[in-house]
Each structure stands twice: as C-alpha cells, then as structure tokens.
C-alpha cells in the first residue's frame, strides 16, 4: 500500500504494535480465548446503568491502529469526516467499524472508496489475523458501501437488508459516476460496487465464535434498506444512518417511517451506539434526541404549510430554519430534506 503522493487518511503502521491488550487478539487461539474471557469479565464488571460514551472512547484510546478506536472490548469504530465526498477526504465521510469474535470478524460498513475500505482492512489486520467472515452494509449509500471492494475474498460474505440489493443496483451506476467525479481518479481508484448477497428479512443472529451479533432490518426510514447491528456481548449498536450526529440528517426514505423507527430503537437499551455520522461512540438513547427533534420540527412545520395550501417552493424557503445552527452541512442538505418531506407529507 505504498503511495507516491500524500494521502489524507492515516498511514498504516509499519508493524503491529506489540502487546497492546487488543493486539493480543492477533496471537494464537489460546491467547485469544484467554483475552476474550478477560474481556467478558471486564464487561460484566461494569456497573449497571453506566453509560460509557465518548469519555470511554477517550479513556480506552489505546488502539493498535490509528484509523479506529476500540470503543468496547473487541468493538472498533472509525469516525468519518463530517463532509461531503471530496478529493481531500477520499470518501472517508461515514463512520465504520468491526467486531472481533473468537473465530471471525464482522465489518460494519466500508467507507466511500476502495482506499477507505483498504484502510479499514489494514486496521482489522492490525488487530487480528482472524478471517473476515462478514461485511455488513447498514444501508445502500455510497459513503458506507463503496469500500466493499477492498474486502472481497474467499469466505467473506456481504450482508445487508433484503431491499439493499435492489436499491443499490438501481443506483450503482450513478453513485460510481458521482464519486469518481468528486474524489478524482486517484482517490477513486479500484472502487466498484459490491452488492450484498446475504439478504436479511428478519432479525438474524450471526456467530463470530463465542460472540453473537444481531442484525435487524427496519421498515423504510433513512432509506428503504436500513439495518442495525447489535453486539450482544457489549451492548453496542451500530445504527448506520438511522442516527446522524453533528452532520445534518438526509432523508432518502420516509420522514414518518424514520421517526417511528427512532422511537422504537430509543426504547431499546444499549451501552453505546455508533451513529452513521458523528462521534464514533455515543450514549443511548441520548444520541437520538437531536435528530428526532429535527425530523419532528420539519414535519410539524410542513404539515402546517400543507394545511394552509402552501407550495413546495414556499416550504423549502421557510421550513426548519430554527435548526440551522444545530447541524453541519445544513445548506447542503436541508432544502432537499424539506422537498422530500413535503412530497411525502402531502399524501397523508
């Protein structure tokens, strides 16, 4: 992976750091088993009700690879930039992660280019030599799936919501064209669409060896193919773009459906969550509050405008401006959100 030109992503380490706690996972099976047992004990020792959010991330800090934080024992997450795709960020603008079991690894989302995927792959290899059995896509959007190509290997299965195959297939050509233009030829090199083949229609448990992760497909919300991943051992949920933090939400499904799914998820306890954008680890259900407020505000304001026979263009000029200072990239996406929400809500 040597490059002739500076690249904004952290460079892979020359060698694996020796004897960090997680680095032990890269050792032989007996050492792994011992460590997993210790990790489980450590998790059990956490006081009930403690919400290890960002503070824990900072405290843990020690990661065998700068691309990821170990946000819980055996659970790693990468914070993507809060930005649109650019040559500078090479498509690294969504949160990604992976979960390490006794026998195998599951990767959750792969970034917006083969290069970002390759960095995540290097991070996995800095932690463990175990096979990557699953690559899970939380939904079809390019910033989450265009790194898939870097994980294609014998024995690796790509997994997603049962509607992701149709959604991604229909958009693949366009996603590639847009990302090629936005990233430029070098950052885009090697990027292609890999469509998941294991399609999830009902909550499904995958076993990584002594570690079960539960995949839950949701009704139409952010998109029509949102999937969440829960690590049972640590109570960590990867939410994909069902939760945005800092980055303004983008509506590509149903605003009404999204609020329902958020309310359902918020009732489900979790020790921490990984949002699709924002901090790599957040407290739950607090992380859902700002986005739920945003969706609620624009729904209420649009409903009022529709009741007053106001038009789509009037709505895009006035709705939701109280939210302007609460989000990054507001100008890039808010108008489109109002358009989409208006077109949906006028059919109520």
């Amino acid at each position, binding site marked *: 992976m040597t490059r002739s030109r500076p690249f904004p992503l952290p460079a892979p380490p020359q060698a694996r750091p020796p004897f960090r706690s997680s680095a032990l996972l890269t050792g032989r099976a007996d050492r792994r088993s011992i460590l997993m047992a210790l990790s489980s004990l450590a998790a059990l020792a956490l006081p009930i009700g403690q919400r290890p959010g960002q503070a824990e991330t900072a405290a843990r800090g020690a990661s065998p690879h700068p691309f990821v934080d170990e946000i819980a024992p055996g659970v790693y997450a990468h914070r993507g930039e809060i930005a649109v795709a650019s040559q500078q960020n090479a498509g690294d603008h969504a949160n990604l992660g992976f979960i390490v079991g006794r026998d195998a690894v599951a990767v959750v989302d792969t970034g917006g280019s083969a290069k970002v995927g390759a960095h995540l792959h290097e991070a996995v290899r800095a932690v463990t030599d175990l096979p990557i059995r699953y690559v899970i896509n939380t939904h079809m959007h390019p910033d989450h799936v265009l790194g898939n190509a870097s994980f294609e290997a014998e024995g690796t299965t790509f997994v997603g919501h049962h509607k992701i195959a149709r959604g991604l297939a*229909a958009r693949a050509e*366009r996603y590639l064209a847009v990302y090629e233009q936005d990233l430029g030829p070098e950052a885009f090199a090697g990027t292609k669409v890999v*469509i998941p083949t294991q399609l999830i229609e009902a909550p499904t448990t995958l076993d990584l060896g002594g570690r079960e992760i539960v995949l839950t497909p949701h009704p*139409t919300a952010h998109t029509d193919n949102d999937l969440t991943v829960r690590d049972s051992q640590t109570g960590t949920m990867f939410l994909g773009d069902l939760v945005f933090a800092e980055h303004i939400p983008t509506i590509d499904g149903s605003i009404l459906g999204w609020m329902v799914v958020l309310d359902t998820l918020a009732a489900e306890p979790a020790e921490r969550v990984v949002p699709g954008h924002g901090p790599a680890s957040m407290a739950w259900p607090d992380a859902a509050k700002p986005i739920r407020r945003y969706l609620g505000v624009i729904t209420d304001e649009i409903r009022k405008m529709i009741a007053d*026979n106001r038009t789509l263009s009037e709505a895009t000029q006035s709705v939701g401006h109280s939210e302007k200072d609460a989000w990054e990239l507001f100008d890039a996406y808010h108008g489109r959100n*109002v358009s*989409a929400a208006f*077109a949906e809500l006028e*059919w109520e």
Partner: protein
Amino acid sequence: MIQGPQNKSRFRFSRLAALAASALIASGALHGASAADEDIWPALEKDIFGARTVTEDTSAVTLDAPYRADDAALVPLTVRIPAHVSEHVKKLTLVIDQNPAPVVGDFTFGPAAGSGERVIETRVRVDMYSNVRAIVETDDGRLLMATKFVKAAGGCSAPALKDTDAALADAGRMQIRHLAGEAAAAATATGQRMGQVMIRHPQYSGLQLNQATGYYIPAKFLRSIDISRDGERVFRVEGGISLSEDPNIRFTYASGADDTIEVTAEDTDGRTFTGRAEPKGS
C-alpha cells in the same frame, strides 16, 4: 413488463438516450457546466416548433424556478399567464433544453381554463444545468416564451423512488383539491378558482440502470392527464419522463356551477386512472 411494438420502440429510444446520458456523465458533464455552455436551443426550437419563430416575451408569460434546485428530481416550476393574454392562449409547452427528453409536456387548454390570470405549477426533473422554458401559443399563432436557468443535475437518471414498494403499490392513487384561503386569493380575485391534482406514479424514466440485471428499467410514465371542471376541459397535458415522480399540478380554472373536478390519466402501459372531486361542503 413491456407490451406491444409501440412500447418496444420507446424502450429502444430510452436505452439510447440513457447511453447518451451515461456518456455525458463519463465525460465530466455531470454537473452540466460544459453542456449548458453550448446553446442547443436553436436546434430544439426547430425540432419542436418547425419553421415558426419563438419570441421571448415576459409580458405574455412568466416562469418561476429556483436558480439552484434543492432536489433535481423535484424542481418546482410556476408559469403565470396574465389575464390580458390568457384568454388567447390555447397551448403551453414546457421545455428543459438539456434533458434527455426536453419536452416536459404540452398543455392544451379548454374552455374551463378561464380568462383571468392563468397559473400552472408543477414539478419537473432536471438532468443537468439547463435553461427551462415556458412557451405559450396564442390563438393568432404567436409563440411567446419565458426562460429561466436552473442549476440541477441527475434528476432523470437518479432513481427518485425512496420507497420502491410503496410507490408501485400505490400507482394511480389520486388526490384532487379545491384550494382555498390565501393560496388561492390571487385567483379568486379575478373570478378564477385554484385546484391541485396529485397522481401517484413512479414515472420511470427509462434512464435508470439495474446493475444486477444490466438492463435499464423500462420507461413507464403518465402519457396524458385530462382535467375537467363540470365536464368542460380545463386542460389536457401530454407529458413525458421529465414530469417528476407522483405528478403534481396546481392550476387555475374558471368557476362553474358545481366546480366538480374530474381527472383521467393514462400511462405508457395503457392503464387508465380516474378521479373526481366536488368542493368541500357541496
């Protein structure tokens, strides 16, 4: 999915258009700057109107469109034809120069279109930075035009369907509204009424590639929408793929005895959808 020879040729055409669109995307014209620099209007004008001359005249027609669209697949357009012109206008054509199928639709007005200020408001797809035009044809054969430049990209080739299953299950569902209050005040002041027709339809453009099958999703869209008031035509619109998913039209009409609005729409599969609505309280 496709039946009949007529549809087959349409599909072939769509596929060609799609390939042309892909080529433009590949050549870096995705955001349209280079394509819009080239003035293709003279050629289009000839294709659409033959030897007749189209004259820019904003005293006869005005067009409102966002300079930068929030959503390229859902760009709101408002056409206004002032009262002194409207009674002489028999036809309105909307054109988006750079779209794969530039003619959005032809609106042919009937007696119930009325004679006050005439307003047509709808939503269109804009595939790349383009001039958007509203051209009215008067009963003495003049063609008068208003033009706006719109910055948008990808409106035709992007799959706009946010929930494919819901969109397909609902196709043909209709809402017809008699608008009241402030939104219709300007129309009411000139003795007109304002209505809104919304029809659920995916409006497949034929430009959307299914990567899994390698085939473009065949075009499937509303070919025509007829709107009448108390049995008299307000207008008939013959449209194409540039009308947004779930076509949505607000329009003025002359007040009648009952103000019952009836709508008949037909799509490219030959399916017919109808709706009828009386004003609330009647």
